[in-house]
C-alpha cells in the first residue's frame, strides 16, 4: 500500500432497513440508514461522524467492518474492494480493520480472561502467531499491568476495560480502527485519559480512526475532519478546526446550540434550535430531510439538495448555507 493511498474509501454507499409496524405487520417501511455516503480516510487520519441517534453513524461503521452488507455502493479498504466479498473471502482482510465499542463490558466475552480475548484477535494476524509475551506488551502499550491478562472483564473498571478493548483491537496490527462512542460510557475524568491514549497510539502506529460520536468535545479533541450526518445523508463535512470556527448547515448549528445549554434565549432559539425529534421522511420525498425541524426552512428546501463545496474540504447540503445565509453568529454558538 502506498502512503498516498487512502486506508478507506467509501463511495455512494447505501444501506436501508425495513421496519415492520408491531401492530400492523403488513405496514413495512424502508428506512434509509446510510443513503449515498462518500467518505475517504487517509493514513493516520481521524474522521469523526457526528449526528443524533438514528443519523446512521453506527450503521456506517458496521458497513465498513462488514458486520452488515451494503445494498449498493463501493467500500475500498487498503485498496481492496470489500463490499461483495463473502465472510470467508473477507477474513484475511479482517485484520486491517478493528473495532472498539461503546460499552466495554458488553463487548468482552465474560468467560474469557482479558488476555484470552486479546489472543483471540491475534489469530487474525497473517501467520496466526499467538504469543503471550506480546499480550503483555500490548497491555503495557495501553497502560495496563501484565496482571490484567489474567483478570476477567467484570473485575476491572470501565476505563481499564476500554484500554484493554483498544489493546485487543490493536493485536492484529490494523490500519483502521472503528470507534463507536468509545468514551460515552466512561466518567469525564477517565474519558480524557482514553482519548489521549487513542491519540498516542495513532502517532506511534500511523493508525486511522473512523469515530462515531455525538459528543462534540470528543470530536474537537481527536478528529482531523468531521462528517455531520442526518437520516443517512451527509449534511456537512469540513476539517475540524474549520467546522468549529464556521459551521454552516442549520443542523450543525443546531447541534452546537443544543450543547450550549446555558446560552439559550428565545431570539437564538428562532435562529438555531432544532425542533422536535428525528422522524423518517415519507416515501417518495426527495427534499431536505431536516424540513420540519429546521428553524430556517423555506418552501425551496423541499427540493432535492446537493452537497455543495463552499471552501477547500468544506461542503454543505443546504442551499441557504451555500448562499451564505446561515453563518451569522455561528462562531458565537460554538463557544
Amino acid at each position, binding site marked *: 500500500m502506498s502512503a498516498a493511498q487512502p486506508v478507506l474509501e467509501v463511495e455512494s454507499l447505501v444501506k436501508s432497513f425495513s421496519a415492520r409496524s408491531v401492530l400492523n405487520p403488513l405496514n413495512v417501511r424502508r428506512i434509509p440508514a446510510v443513503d449515498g455516503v462518500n467518505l475517504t480516510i487517509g493514513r493516520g487520519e481521524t474522521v469523526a461522524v457526528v449526528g443524533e441517534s438514528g443519523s446512521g453513524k453506527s450503521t456506517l461503521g458496521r458497513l465498513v467492518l462488514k458486520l452488515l452488507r451494503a445494498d449498493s455502493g463501493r467500500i475500498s479498504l487498503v485498496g481492496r474492494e470489500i463490499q461483495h466479498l463473502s465472510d470467508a473471502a473477507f477474513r484475511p482482510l479482517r485484520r486491517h480493520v478493528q473495532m472498539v465499542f461503546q460499552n466495554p463490558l458488553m463487548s468482552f466475552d465474560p468467560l474469557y480472561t482479558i488476555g484470552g480475548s486479546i489472543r483471540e484477535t491475534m489469530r487474525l494476524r497473517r501467520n496466526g502467531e499467538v504469543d503471550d509475551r506480546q499480550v503483555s506488551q500490548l497491555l503495557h502499550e495501553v497502560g495496563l499491568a501484565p496482571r490484567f491478562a489474567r483478570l476477567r472483564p467484570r473485575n476491572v473498571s470501565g476505563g481499564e476495560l476500554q484500554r484493554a478493548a483498544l489493546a485487543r483491537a490493536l493485536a492484529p496490527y490494523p490500519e483502521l480502527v472503528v470507534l463507536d462512542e468509545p468514551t460515552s460510557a466512561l*466518567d*469525564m475524568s477517565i474519558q480524557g*485519559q482514553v482519548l489521549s491514549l487513542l491519540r498516542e497510539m495513532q502517532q506511534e502506529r500511523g493508525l486511522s480512526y473512523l469515530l462515531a460520536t*455525538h459528543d462534540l468535545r470528543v470530536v474537537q*479533541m481527536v478528529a482531523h475532519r468531521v462528517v455531520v450526518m442526518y437520516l443517512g445523508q451527509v449534511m456537512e463535512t469540513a476539517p475540524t478546526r474549520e467546522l468549529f470556527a464556521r459551521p454552516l448547515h442549520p443542523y450543525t448549528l443546531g447541534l452546537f446550540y443544543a450543547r450550549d*445549554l446555558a446560552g439559550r434565549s428565545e431570539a437564538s432559539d428562532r435562529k438555531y434550535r432544532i425542533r422536535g*425529534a428525528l422522524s423518517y421522511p415519507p416515501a417518495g420525498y426527495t427534499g431536505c430531510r431536516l424540513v420540519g425541524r429546521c428553524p430556517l426552512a423555506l418552501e425551496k428546501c423541499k427540493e432535492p439538495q446537493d452537497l455543495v463545496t463552499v471552501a477547500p474540504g468544506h461542503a454543505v447540503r443546504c442551499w441557504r448555507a451555500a448562499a451564505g445565509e446561515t453563518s451569522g453568529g455561528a462562531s458565537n454558538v460554538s463557544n
Partner: protein
Amino acid sequence: MLAEPRHVEESALRLLEIGQLEVVAQTQRESVKLLRGIDLWLDTARLGVVGESGSGKSMTAAAILGLLPTGIRVTRGSIRFAGRELLGLPESDLQEIRGKQISIVYQNAVTSLNPLMSVGDQIARVCRVHTGVSRAEAWRRAVEMLASLGIADAANRARDYPHQFSGGMAQRVAIGAALICGPKLLIADEPTTGLDATIQAQVLDVITESVRRTGAALLLISHDLGVIQATTDSVVVLYAGLVMEIGGTDAVISSPLNPYTQGLVRALTPKDDGTIQFIPGRVPEPQTISEQCPFASRCPLVTQRCRVEKPLLRELRPGQWVACHNV
C-alpha cells in the same frame, strides 16, 4: 442524631435538609462507606448535585426516598423534609410521602415505565392512589398533564404504551407521573443522560418550566456540569461520598474554590487549541478511603494533612462552602 447547630436553627425554614448522612454497604466480609457524612440543604428552588460515578449522588436520592438497595443502610445523620425527620419513619408513612410529596424521575424513562400499561393509566394511577379521585377524573388530569408537557394530541397519545414513545417523549411521561400529585420536591436523577443533545435541551426546558409552574422544588442529579449550570440555582459537588463544595451555581462555576471543582470546570470547556484538561487519575475505590480527603490521590494541592484528616465544610465566601484543607 443531629449535625452542627446551624442545621437545627434553620431547619424550620428549609424544605430539605440533610445532615452528616452516612450510608454503608454491608457485605459478608466488610462494610464500605458510600456516603461519609454529607450535608446539603435546599435554600433555593432548584438545587443541583454533581459528581462522577461512585460519588454517591444516586445513593443520596435513594436515601431521601427510603429506597436504598438491600444490604445498604443509613448508619448516621438526618434527612429532614418540611421539618419532619424521614429516617426511621415507618414504611407506610414513607409511602404516603413518596409520589405525593417527593417524586423522582430516573435516567431511562422507557425502562422506568411499566411496559404493559398505557402511559395515561400510569399517570392516572398515581393520582388515584394518592388523592382518591374517580377513575374518570384521574384520566382527565393525566391527559391534561401530558398536554402541559408538550405532548401533541395528548388525549389519544395517553392510550399509547411506553414503547411507542421516543426517549425524550417517554421522559415527559415520567415527569408527568412524578408531578401529577403536585409534589413539593421533584428529584430528577440524570434525567437527560443518554438522550441526544437536541432532545436533552427540550427535556430540561420541560423540567424547568413544569417546576416553575407547579411551584415544586427541584433536586437535579447529573454528572454533567453543563446540565447543572443550565437548570439550577445552587449546586452541591460530591466526590467519593463527600461534599466538596456547595454554593450558588454561577458562583461555583465561575470561581470554584475546591481543587476538584476547579478540575471539573476546566474539563467543561476546551482550551483555545481544542484540547481539554481532564483530571488525572481515577476515583478511588470506597473501601480504600478511611479518614482522609478522598480527592487526595489526584489533587494538585495535596499535603500530608489531606491524607490523614477529612476536610470539613467551611463557608469561605458568603453562601459558598468548601471542604478543603488548603484553600
